[in-house]
């Protein structure tokens, strides 16, 4: 298999070996200066030699295609920590924030709040109606109600196996809701016409953050980078051909701090495995819809709020949603950035943004993510001041009860947030 080949990386990247390239660089240097530059050796058994080899390898990667870059960075398999976005681990959101260098801000970004601040006397219904128009609002509301009642009332469904209720009752509702809303809002948001709606995509991301000392073995005492991998399967996602605008400027001051945890990831618990290092946004690199818009995640049965309350873990549901949003959106935006050719030594020049909605059929929570940096631990940029930002709302109920042919206790704030997310469009 290609992943197990023992060919050196340099041969894979270009026909000229790096020794030839570096000697050529030295020749051009001598043409300008009187004496050649004093460089550490390439082949000595020393830290500076290893660092020089690495820096030359990074320089070679700078001019390569994104496909080649991804292949070169993910070719070699080693043991890595696997981060599961939907996790039972208590307090996982702080740990995930530490490993993805994300600051968490509660509430949505200013862009979604300004419309509310301007019209404080209007309720969410009136705001929606002013944005969309009366008939569009009623059309959207009836789409959502129909999708709800279809799964819960119109279709006769019996009980299903243990832990499979969500996939029978809620997954079809969410699929109908998403496709119905996208079709209704195509006139208001023309980018949705060129978008791609995927169901059950596979989003993967592989990155390095921090270092660890190997505790035992023939390499004990040596420093090794800490590798992480996220393999996520959201329920559905919308990808668009242009990028969404940023929520805040790249170098802006972020009021929240990234929590620092000095304990090893094994205490979370996070487990290590070795397998293919994948980086994917849900589609291949040549796909025209390269940027992300919104992801929709389903809360599995095991993490339903009723089950967690019985186990004395009621506050874990919020933690679970935050951890899910941070991990999934970091993986998605990171994969989008790698598809554009950015990586940890070539940091992103513009922020990558995406949105996510996490639901269990009745309760919704909304998250926005802005990727400002991929250089979490890089040789060229060791003290990187930039950090990524995640905004999130607490859980909101869409309705209170469902009776025959009617939805009671409707909450328009949830619908307003959904519509705002789907109307978010790139700057043309």
């Amino acid at each position, binding site marked *: 298999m290609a992943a197990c080949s023992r060919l050196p990386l340099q041969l894979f990247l270009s026909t000229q070996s790096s020794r030839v390239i570096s000697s050529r660089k030295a020749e051009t240097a001598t043409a300008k200066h009187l004496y050649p530059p004093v460089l550490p050796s390439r082949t000595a058994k020393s830290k500076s030699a290893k660092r020089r080899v690495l820096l030359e390898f990074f320089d070679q990667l700078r001019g390569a295609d994104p496909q080649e870059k991804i292949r070169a960075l993910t070719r070699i398999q080693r043991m890595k920590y696997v981060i599961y976005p939907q996790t*039972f*681990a*208590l*307090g996982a959101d702080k740990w995930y924030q530490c490993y993805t260098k994300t600051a968490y801000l509660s509430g949505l970004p200013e862009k979604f709040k300004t419309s509310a601040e301007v019209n404080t006397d209007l309720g969410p219904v009136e705001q929606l109606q002013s944005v969309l128009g009366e008939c569009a609002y009623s059309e959207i509301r009836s789409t959502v109600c129909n999708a709800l009642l279809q799964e819960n009332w119109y279709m006769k469904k019996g009980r299903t196996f243990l832990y499979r209720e969500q996939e029978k009752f809620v997954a079809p509702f969410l699929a109908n809701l998403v496709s119905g809303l996208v079709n209704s809002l195509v006139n208001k948001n023309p980018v949705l016409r060129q978008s791609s709606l995927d169901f059950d995509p596979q989003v993967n991301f592989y990155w390095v953050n921090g270092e660890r000392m190997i505790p035992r073995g023939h390499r004990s005492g040596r420093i090794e980078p800490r590798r992480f991998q996220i393999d996520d399967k959201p329920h559905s996602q919308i990808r668009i051909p242009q990028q969404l605008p940023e929520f805040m400027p790249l170098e802006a001051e972020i009021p929240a701090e990234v929590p620092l945890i000095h*304990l090893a990831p094994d*205490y979370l*618990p996070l487990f290590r495995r070795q397998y293919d290092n994948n980086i994917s946004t849900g589609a291949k690199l040549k796909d025209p819809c390269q940027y992300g818009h919104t992801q929709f995640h389903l809360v599995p049965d095991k993490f339903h709020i009723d089950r967690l309350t019985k186990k*004395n*873990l009621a*506050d*874990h549901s919020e933690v679970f949603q935050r951890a899910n949003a941070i991990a999934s959106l970091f993986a998605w935006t990171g994969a989008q950035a790698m598809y554009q050719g950015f990586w940890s030594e070539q940091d992103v020049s513009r922020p990558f943004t995406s949105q996510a909605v996490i639901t269990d059929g009745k309760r919704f929570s909304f998250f926005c993510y802005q990727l400002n940096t991929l250089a979490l631990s890089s040789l060229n940029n060791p003290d990187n001041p930039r950090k990524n930002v995640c905004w999130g709302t607490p859980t909101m109920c869409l309705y209170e009860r469902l009776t025959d042919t009617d939805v009671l206790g409707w909450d328009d704030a949830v619908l307003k947030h959904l519509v705002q997310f789907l109307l978010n469009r790139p700057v043309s």
Partner: protein
Amino acid sequence: MGICESYPIYQLGNPQLRIFRPTFNMTLVRPGKEQPPDTVQFRISMEMTKCDVRNYLEKIYSVPVGAVRTRIQYCSNKKRNHLNQRVKRPDYKVAYVQLSKQQTFQFPDIFPEKGKKHEEGSVEEIQEKFMEDERQRQKPDPRRGGVTEWFGL
């Protein structure tokens, strides 16, 4: 009820006359490696399970338990006694309990350091050592159990 009398037969709905107490014990120990602030480490009986640990703490001590993870520590069977027989150090089970409701626990310092140590070779150190030896010489025989020398030969 006495030892010789027997309890009446139990049927659903009868009042509960017998009290069942667990035969287990749990020992709170100081973690050898640093643990997260919400984790408490116990040594428990080998027959206990995670559910037993959770019920024990919640029902008897009303401690809100979030998650329990257990492992079995194997202790060596390598040491030999004077008859060249292998002597087994008994195995034990360790439980790591994560508390819910954002509670934290720090194992207390049971043996705090008291008295200040003088530096090596100084005059105060030699004096302290001399006083310590004098006190040791003046102490009565500990095998007499506090009885004075007056009651003796």
